[in-house]
């Protein structure tokens, strides 16, 4: 569903992404992890069509992000870190706009369901500028879910959410993946990634350190006598700047 081949992104003299290649099938949830400045947000922005790749191909649901940008955006939802909202629009109006933008047939009922799910019903008439950080995050997620995208990209989605919101979001991610969506979650919360994701892509300085199933990463690259948690593996992968080596290599 998400197919990236040899993705390179260069800004002036800085190589933000260097030859990334990975694939996320329908039903899979891929965790995108790496140190600050690793190229995670650049990768997500390229997938969402906001930035143009310097080289490489990116396709979503068989559509090229570069050549079929409008069609790919119809099947995609990108929820950035601290999502910017229109300060003069209310919660309801944001959803009305999103419904019109994506031509959602039953947008009113779907919006109601989402507002119920994320406990925003009491804030329907509230202006976006008057919402708290967590509520803005929830509203952005609702807008992103409204058109039932086949591809969903999250950048630090849990920031600002309360415990109920965190649980709700995790449940919706799992549910949507089970329904066939391909999902990427970029986060520094390794415990959450380990708990939620089926696959992992580790980036460091624009380079791809590892991509594959999480279990494969744990079982193949960590001595069974040691704790096989993602945090340990992360530090091994990015701390000494060396490519991960399988045991015995």
């Amino acid at each position, binding site marked *: 569903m998400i197919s990236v081949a040899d993705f390179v992104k260069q800004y002036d003299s800085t190589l933000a992404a260097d030859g990334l290649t990975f694939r996320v099938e329908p039903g899979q949830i891929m965790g995108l992890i790496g140190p600050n400045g690793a190229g995670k947000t650049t990768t997500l922005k390229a997938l969402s069509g906001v930035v143009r790749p310097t080289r490489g191909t990116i396709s979503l649901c068989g559509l090229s992000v570069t050549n079929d940008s409008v069609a790919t955006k119809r099947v995609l939802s990108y929820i950035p870190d601290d999502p910017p909202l229109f300060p*003069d629009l209310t919660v309801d109006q944001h959803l009305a706009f999103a419904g019109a933008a994506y031509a959602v047939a039953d947008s009113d009922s779907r919006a109601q369901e989402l507002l119920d799910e994320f406990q925003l019903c009491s804030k329907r008439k509230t202006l976006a*500028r008057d919402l708290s950080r967590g509520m803005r995050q929830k509203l952005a997620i609702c807008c992103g879910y409204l058109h039932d995208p086949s591809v969903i990209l999250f950048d630090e989605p849990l920031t600002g959410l309360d415990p109920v919101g965190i649980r709700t979001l995790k449940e919706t991610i799992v549910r949507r993946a089970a329904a066939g969506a391909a999902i990427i979650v970029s986060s520094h919360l390794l415990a959450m990634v380990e708990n939620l994701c089926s696959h992992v892509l580790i980036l460091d300085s624009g380079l791809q350190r590892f991509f594959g199933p999480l279990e494969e990463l744990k079982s193949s690259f960590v001595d069974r006598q040691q704790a096989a948690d993602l945090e340990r593996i992360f530090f091994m992968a990015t701390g000494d700047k060396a490519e991960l080596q399988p045991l015995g290599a």
Partner: protein
Amino acid sequence: MNTLLHPALPLLLRLQFNGRICGLSHSLLSRRNWVLTLVGVVLAVVWLGNAVASLLFRGPYDPETFHRAASLGMLGYVLWQVLRVSAKRPEHRIEWTPAERHFLLGGPFARRELVAYRLVKVLSTTVLKATCVSILFLPELRVWWIGFVGALLGFAFLEMLRLAVEFTACGVSRLAYLRTRTVVLAAAIALGSYALVRTVMMPNADQGPIAAWSLLRSFGLELSAFRGTIVGCWLESPFVVFANVLTSNGVSTQFYGSLLTAIALLGTAGILLFRLDAAFEAGQSGCEAAEHVPPRESSQPQMLARRVSIPRLGGIGPLAWRQFEGARGHLAGVLVALLAPTILACLPLSTTLDHATIFANVVGSIGFFSLVLLPSAFKFDFRRDFERLHVLKSLPFRPASVALGQIAVPVLLTSLYQVLVLAIAWWLQPISAAYVLIALACLLPANVMIYSIENTFFLISPHRMRQEGIEVFFKTTLIFTAKGLLFGGAAVVVFCWVFLAGVLGNAAAIDHRLLFVAGLSALAWVAAGLSVCVLSRVYQRMEAGVDCGT
């Protein structure tokens, strides 16, 4: 969907417009802002009253002069835009708000739909501008609604050309931009210098008390003489069409001809905009392709960078230093912004009046341009910190320190401009150094006052620097009117003090000139202190998250 404007975009425009009107009325009528609202209403009444009075009591301008001024004014506006982007390249072809960048650039909208959305948003202000202009020039318009249509089409054309200039400046490669910039700036300097020399060399220069204005008029006439050249005619020709519509006698064949030509020009400008955007979007060689990302930290050990030692001064130091670094990054723009005011302020030096009168003219010119022109050029203060106001509020500095630290750089730049012009005046028209020092003693607190007032207005209703829309248009008009009234008020105070100083001086047997200077300087410093206090207070009471939006 193969439409010019996606159906969701007019919905968004409508929702935003309604939201802004609701927000504006709520803000104006809130307890915190009702004083400002009252002041705004008074100013509006004064401005409108002045406009109505001018309509009722003044005779119409000569039709030929009005027609020429309209076309030349439009041409001048476009040339100014070319000069402006030559001095400072826009960072983006289209300035999107963060929310627009997220929802629109990330949404299922074709590029042409986004450009159309942007165009509609920009053109929405032309209705109000056309209404104001058509009312202001009612005596000159033969048929009001025809004048309104002409003004509307003219403003729309100007906005489209402005966008086209910005698209081009941002869309071409850096090398092409630099080469064009060199040519444009060289041409501007050559033209300005030629006109200036001809003005100065004019025989029988006016020697009256308003020699500066006469010279300014002559300078303007010299510049406008270029319309008689082949290049001038060619450049002015599109704008003549809109001036024809504006000044039409009535519905006639000629009117329809001009109207159709004007609409065709508008259509052409619109098509040009879309084509330019598509071409630059495909080419990706301009400023938007060169997004800067800070270089990743190397794993190699590095020499410790030499640290800058910034005096804290209660917080004033770091804030002023930060704004100074910002000004340093825009040095070219700062120098270009100083060019016109410096030339204009030096014009009185070419007259043959006595030195004291010339000096007074120069000081008056400096004061006027410092009040009117420079504040919009030197926005190295709160006005460029719209999205960082909450960061400022979190700093451990007193409000007064923040206020002084934020306005320090524009005050310094304006003061340097004034010192430069006064130095030139003193060199060309030698006068007692005491006069120069007295002028500086009064101008420095005036600078503090100007930027305190400018920033106070901003903090009461913050907005992004390049934000457009009716709301910003209202704010700009209000602020400009307020500054004009302040300037007039200050002039009245000065004249009153001249009289009073004479009376008091005679009564106390003190040199009235000494008394006048001391009193004026003291008054200026007190007013500056009060304005900084007001700014501090407004800053202290401002709630960054609530008042700024996202």
